[in-house]
């Protein structure tokens, strides 16, 4: 076990959380008034934690780089949120949700954490409805559910294509209530640039006011990092432009272990890159795969002709199309899990069958669904022998009712009518399962430094199921952290306010100032984005959907060189005073350039394929992932030692007592 103590309570799985809550120390209400908590990030995990902690009586300070807490990237989640409510009576239960999540994560997550998540999922829905979150409803007035990939029940609650926004607005409203009461002080357009440790405990942060440019010291008895994932290490991802790893990475450098950095989810249905100018990628909901058939041309000449604009997809005859998912995975077909679908698309495009000008796109075709729905509709309308046009028109109506807003979004971006021409899609980086290592209490390896939501590693193993990210963020924030943090803070009731004029604050602030100042002493000509794009290319090509030993070694070397070049040569205009968006980006990219190397190192260490991590050396003869449970049944927790390449590995061995570890198969 080494120095990693997961602090998982003993006892039967289903009783662990209840028992733990009964046994941990509490802080009495009068004492909570004397305790300050800093929360970095105001997405679902941060906003919900802030609201609950403030409500319990703690003094909370929240920090976000956006201009309002409500704009954190949780807002972009479309599909839904899982909860084992069993409202549909289809046999769902917390155990089933737990099991699906463990299996979906390819057996690389901690049983006790996942079970707790499944247990709390039911409370989330109750809570959100009480707060006025407008979930979709049936005509009877009760909540509606839909099903998502990788599961056999309908447990996903949703608010059209805006579930993330509605849930975040709910958490933000709860925050607003506490801001109004004076229990939360919200710092917007502030970025945490370092964690301050006093006597080995997290006692505050150094933040930069992005408007004035001033460095500020903020002290607290505990610091919660809810700063999201690090998908932007790839430059192009579905993350927001500002999403970054800085808060987590700075904590890592101060002693928090970073777990499983190479576990990244690449979502199969995104709008493909259109050119070098591309700044970010847009996700199309996974639900499209229910009706769309994915294909590329069978013949290389046809693919080439399409890329050169000499041929249209609709001109390719049925027998000349390769529905490769249906071919390879007859049982699941187009509905294989995200990681499998993504890799299959890459395999075809790498083989030269890509269908847009960059060669990195496959078709998602609705014509079969339109014809099928059209015929069904014609039948129900009593039309005998309808002509083709009528069938198509009727079918398009059905498709529009189901996916209208997505089709409209696609048309706005690509300028092609997806009803008439097949959509083009390609996988894109979407979510990072890895993150700061935390124990059962969500505490990192730094005492007093907690980590919640996407920023931690805890619940999704090597692959996350759809509609589970929102669930984790809210469970952590509303129901887990507020209890577990009390155990730690109960020892701080006599500490009193933490002064910000201590040597620790002086020194940390000086280090931040020095780090930022260095960006203005460079002599090069390339902008921050130039380096970020280069890093993204390395990551995508060598640490992306499939990885191999030599590529990962090259990646480590190239990233280290790029980092050196960046630190010496990046051009940042302006000064530290006032608003300087390039300086903000420079700080973030500097941290990505370190994380990227650790990412590659982690992927290199893990000589197996599991979930989002696919090593070409470890696959079955027909190209499926090959997990190695004997050697790699552990969480990789990396300790910073001064250079990402020299990070020290600590292993938390995963124990599965309640599920049978099996091979995932979708054939």
């Amino acid at each position, binding site marked *: 076990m080494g120095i990693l103590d997961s602090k998982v309570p003993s006892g039967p799985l289903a009783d662990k959380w209840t028992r733990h809550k009964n046994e941990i120390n509490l802080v009495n209400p009068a004492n909570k008034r004397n305790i300050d908590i800093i929360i970095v990030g105001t997405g679902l995990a941060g906003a919900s934690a802030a609201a*609950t902690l403030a*409500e319990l009586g703690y003094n909370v300070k929240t920090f976000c780089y956006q*201009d309002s807490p*409500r*704009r954190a*990237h949780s*807002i*972009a989640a479309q599909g839904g949120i899982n909860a084992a409510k069993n*409202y549909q009576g289809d046999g769902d239960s917390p155990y089933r949700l737990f099991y699906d999540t463990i299996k979906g994560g390819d057996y690389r997550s901690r049983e006790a954490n996942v079970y707790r998540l499944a247990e709390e999922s039911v409370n989330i829905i*109750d*809570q*959100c*409805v*009480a*707060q*006025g979150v*407008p*979930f979709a*409803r*049936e*005509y*009877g*007035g*009760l*909540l509606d559910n839909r099903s998502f990939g990788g599961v056999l029940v309908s447990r996903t609650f949703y*608010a*059209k294509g*805006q579930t993330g*926004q*509605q849930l975040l607005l709910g958490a933000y*409203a*709860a925050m*607003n*209530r506490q801001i*109004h009461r004076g229990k939360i002080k*919200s710092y*917007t357009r502030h970025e945490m640039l370092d964690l301050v440790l006093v006597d080995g405990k997290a006692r505050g942060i150094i933040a930069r006011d992005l*408007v004035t440019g001033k460095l500020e010291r903020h002290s607290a008895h505990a610091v919660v990092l809810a700063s999201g994932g690090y998908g932007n290490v790839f430059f192009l991802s*579905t993350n*927001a*432009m*500002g999403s970054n790893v800085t808060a987590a990475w700075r904590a890592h450098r101060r002693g928090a272990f970073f777990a499983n950095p190479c576990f990244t989810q690449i979502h199969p249905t995104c709008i493909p890159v259109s*050119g070098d*100018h*591309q*700044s*970010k990628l*847009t*996700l199309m909901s996974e639900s499209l795969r229910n009706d769309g058939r994915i294909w590329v041309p069978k013949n290389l000449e046809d693919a080439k002709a399409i890329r050169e604009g000499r041929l249209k997809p609709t001109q390719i005859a049925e027998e000349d199309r390769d529905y490769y998912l249906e071919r390879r995975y007859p049982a699941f077909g187009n509905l294989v899990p995200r990681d499998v679908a993504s890799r299959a698309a890459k395999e075809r495009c790498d083989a030269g069958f890509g269908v847009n000008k960059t060669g990195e796109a496959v078709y998602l075709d609705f014509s079969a669904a339109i014809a099928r729905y059209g015929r069904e509709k014609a039948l129900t309308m009593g039309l005998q022998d309808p002509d083709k046009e009528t069938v198509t028109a009727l079918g398009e109506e059905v498709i529009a009712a189901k996916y209208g807003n997505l089709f409209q*979004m696609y048309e*706005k971006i690509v*300028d092609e009518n997806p009803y008439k021409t097949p959509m083009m899609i390609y996988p894109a980086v979407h979510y990072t399962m890895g993150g700061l290592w935390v124990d059962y209490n969500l505490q990192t390896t730094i005492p007093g430094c907690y980590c919640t939501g996407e920023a931690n590693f805890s619940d999704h193993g090597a692959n996350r199921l759809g509609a589970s990210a929102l669930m984790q963020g809210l469970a952590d924030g*509303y129901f887990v952290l*507020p209890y577990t943090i009390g155990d730690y803070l109960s020892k701080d009731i006599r500490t009193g306010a933490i002064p910000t004029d201590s040597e620790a604050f002086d020194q940390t602030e000086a280090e931040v100032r020095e780090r930022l100042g260095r960006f203005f002493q460079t002599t090069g000509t390339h*902008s921050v984005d*130039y380096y970020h794009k280069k890093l993204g290319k390395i990551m995508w090509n060598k640490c992306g959907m499939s990885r191999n030993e030599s590529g990962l070694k090259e990646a480590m070397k190239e990233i280290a060189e790029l980092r050196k070049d960046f630190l010496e040569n990046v*051009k940042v*205009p302006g000064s530290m005073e006032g*608003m300087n968006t*390039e300086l903000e980006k420079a700080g973030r990219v500097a941290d990505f350039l370190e994380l990227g190397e650790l990412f590659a190192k982690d992927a290199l260490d893990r000589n197996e394929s599991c979930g989002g991590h696919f090593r070409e050396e470890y696959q079955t003869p027909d190209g499926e992932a090959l997990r190695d449970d004997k050697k790699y049944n552990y969480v990789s927790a990396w300790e910073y030692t001064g250079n990402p390449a020299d990070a020290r590995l600590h292993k938390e061995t995963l124990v599965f007592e309640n599920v049978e570890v099996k091979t995932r198969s979708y054939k």
Partner: protein
Amino acid sequence: MNLLLKIWRQNNSASRGSLVDYPISGIEGDMSFLEMLDVLNEQLIAKGEDPVVFDHDCREGICGSCSLMINGEPHGPDRLITTCQLHMRKFKDGDTIVIEPFRASAFPVIKDLMVDRSSFDRIQQAGGYISVNTSGHTVDANAIPIEKEKADESFAAATCIGCGACVAACKNASAMLFTAAKVSQFALLPQGQIEATDRVLNMVKQMDLEGFGNCTNTGACEVECPKGISLENIARMNREYLMASAKG
């Protein structure tokens, strides 16, 4: 395509700003409007000039950060989208594009095209919530059945992303559509009834305090709203407000 950009440059909230001309070439129709500005900024940085500052984040039309007045319209000439979803194919080679910040006394300019919309946050802090504790122990979600039509209407109001286009478009810089969307979202739900009176009074009071203008029912906000929030919400808020005032 080649374009002439006229962009508002202003160093900080205290300084005076002005429009500055930036000719730009090599713009492709597939670029989003913000990607076009990225291209400009890369050129400015290469020349050692300060890049143009503008708010943006998700770049997929949902976070509500981006906020440009493009050729006299918030989020540009296209409808039901935000600036980040506007593509350059909506413009022609040789076009002149005037880019200004959203303007209102309640939205002071921070720098260039970036404005401070914290007034929106304060309006919501004044009452845009249901006072329920978040630490659990609420009733079962299905114990509160809600008529589907009402739930859908509430959702439609709740789709507001708080971008401020309504204020920017309004000739009076009024925030009625925003505030009304927030009031309506709760007013339409049974959970929101308990605090309905105080909510509308407090939110409207804060809206007035922030210095937004008055609604003259021009309907510009509804047209420019990227989420298509309906004017019906304003009527609903007026109604709620009058009833709440009558109650005292």
